[in-house]
């Protein structure tokens, strides 16, 4: 059973991955470390926009920034990806959402019944 902390981390990871630019940045970093300038090149995005995406990836623990002077190259940290790339984790989330919806639907049915009784 995943702990609450694991769950939070998975949420961060999925949030960071739920964006095609950020996935493309990660795919680029899978080929090797790169500076923000290098990462911005293939996209028609401003440097600040790319920096913003990188910050999201950093917060999710997917990207680590080097300390070396002004360039601070970005590198991929694959650890969180290992967790989310298994199909079980992907499907676990699909089912969890479904059962949340099942719960909400049950509440809806109960309220309808109550209204019918009282109305």
């Amino acid at each position, binding site marked *: 059973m995943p702990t609450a902390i694991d769950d939070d981390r998975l949420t961060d990871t999925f949030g960071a*991955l739920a964006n*095609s630019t950020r*996935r*493309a940045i*990660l*795919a680029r970093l*899978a*080929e090797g470390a790169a500076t923000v300038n290098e990462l911005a090149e293939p996209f028609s995005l401003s440097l600040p926009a790319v920096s913003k995406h990188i910050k999201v990836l950093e917060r999710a623990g997917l990207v680590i920034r080097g300390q070396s002077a002004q360039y601070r190259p970005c590198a*991929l940290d*694959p650890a969180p*990806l*290992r967790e989310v*790339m298994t*199909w*079980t984790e*992907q*499907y*676990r*989330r*699909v*089912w*969890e*959402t*479904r*059962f949340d*919806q*099942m*719960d*909400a*639907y*049950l509440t809806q*049915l*109960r309220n309808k019944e109550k209204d019918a009784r009282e109305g």
Partner: protein
Amino acid sequence: MTDSKPMDAVVIERSFDAPVDLIWKLWTDPEHFKAWYGPDGASIPVAKLDVRVGGTRLVCMEVQTPNGPMQMWFTGEYLEVVENQRLVYTEAMSDEHGNVSTDESAPPGHPQTTEVRVELEDLGGRTRMVMTHVGIPPDSPGAAGWTMAFAKLASYLDAHR
């Protein structure tokens, strides 16, 4: 339960504040089923559920994409039907006629057909449910749109194991 937990499966246990026969209906009555089954942002325009052993199911899931609605069809067969207790069915991607898609790109070890098991327990007005989903292929809709970037990342992970 945990000792019989299969490898490579999603197992989710939930309790619902509803009687067991209502939870059963949510899984087996098409109108109820459509109301909750769609994953985030998806709707279920079609659900044909012939709930008896050997009966066929055909479910359409529709997601809105920037290029318009995208439909995915799933078919399967009911393997076990014990009212208010146990429902087991297979699931595979198909076309709208229920012809199972053949996809040679699926990696070995990931069967195209998967199995969903739903076990219900009457807790006197409340219901405990255990859902087990076994052997889901990695290129199924849950992964749609992620595949491209992931292919690269997967090879990276393999190289850095």
